[in-house]
């Protein structure tokens, strides 16, 4: 039959020290992992901004013209995009009509 191990105060202090080291090490490793994941995510996600309409520059010109008006189109965006502000109801007289033509 085995008897219980008797630990001295010095043994207890050494055990507590090891536990503290493990805890600090785990916390530091977690921080490094989170920072690393964030960096990779930021580098690989295209994201969006107000100017990021996925657009390209369209030249409103023909090859024989010197006059070129450039503007941005959304001919490259990978999805159909909604407006930045929500349309609202109004009771005023309309400026113009939409409809089929």
């Amino acid at each position, binding site marked *: 039959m085995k008897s219980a191990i008797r630990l001295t105060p010095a043994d207890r202090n050494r055990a507590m020290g090891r536990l503290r080291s493990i805890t600090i090490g785990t916390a530091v490793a977690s921080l490094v992992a989170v920072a690393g994941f964030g960096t990779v995510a930021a580098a690989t996600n295209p994201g969006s901004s107000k100017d990021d*309409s996925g657009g*390209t520059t*369209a*030249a*409103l*010109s*023909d*090859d024989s013209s010197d006059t070129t*008006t450039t*503007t*941005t*189109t*959304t*001919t*490259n*965006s*990978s*999805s*159909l*995009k*909604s*407006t*930045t*502000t*929500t*349309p*609202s*109801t*109004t*009771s*005023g*007289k*309309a*400026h*113009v*009509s*939409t*409809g*089929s*033509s």
Partner: protein
Amino acid sequence: MAVQRESWRALGTGVHVLVNDADLSAASEAVRAVLAQVDRTYSRFRPDSELSRISDGGSEARRISPLLADAMAAALRAAELTDGRVDPTVGKAMRAVGYDDDFERVRTRTDPIAIRLEPIPGWQAIQFDRRARTLGVPTGVELDLGSTGKALASDLAAWAARAVTRRGGVLVSLGGDIATAGDPPPGGWRILVAEDSDVPSDAGGEVIALHDGAIATSGTTVRAWRRGGIALHHLIDPLTGGPVDSPWRTASVIAATCVDANTAATAAIIRGATAPAWLESLGLAARLVGADGSIHRIGTWPDASRAAGAA
């Protein structure tokens, strides 16, 4: 300064240019220049347009102008994002159902025609290199950029007008395909949502306020005609090559650009019953009118019952 406007006809439809706190004549001049260039470049009904010359010139890939490249990119993107429901290779199918001329002449013809329907070739048949600006159209394939082309013209015209006025805001409507640029008037651009873009803006009905972006409407009731007693319209179902039989007669969609709005509106009609869920999944505000006249509002489309005086 109050909103000012100028209206005329071009590209076979009504053109309206509205400015808020900006030079109307400068804006109109810019819009006219864009529309003239669009007409020269990708009109299906001008034999001397760049698109017509490409179609008549065999299947070999050729270098095209920047504007035609943009129009092709918009059309092929619409086809891809709608799983081919909005497809630029419907040109032959359009002719097959009698839409082979300016619409004013198409709708006055009454003589019967023999219609042979077949699935359209599909947008994948097109050889297009955006970077090199080359386009190859296989023999027998006819392009029609009508769906996205008019909307792109609205976008380009609005942006060109805003670029020259350099202040305030601009709204351009091409047959009800409406694009805006710059600052809207206080309370937003007020849009009467009708089934026919020729309905006068003071006719009464559902009016919404648009603060940015664009709105477009597609439908089967306006660009429609009869040949030999058969009712026909211009929205082609790619699967059959004939006018689509849809539970929706009109779809209006609000989006960031007029190209996106028109693409979604046209696709909604062709999608049929699955359109509401599809529009919802894209986060687009839309209003569908059923064949029976019932109104269905999708996403953030405003509730007309909250507006005093709304019909």
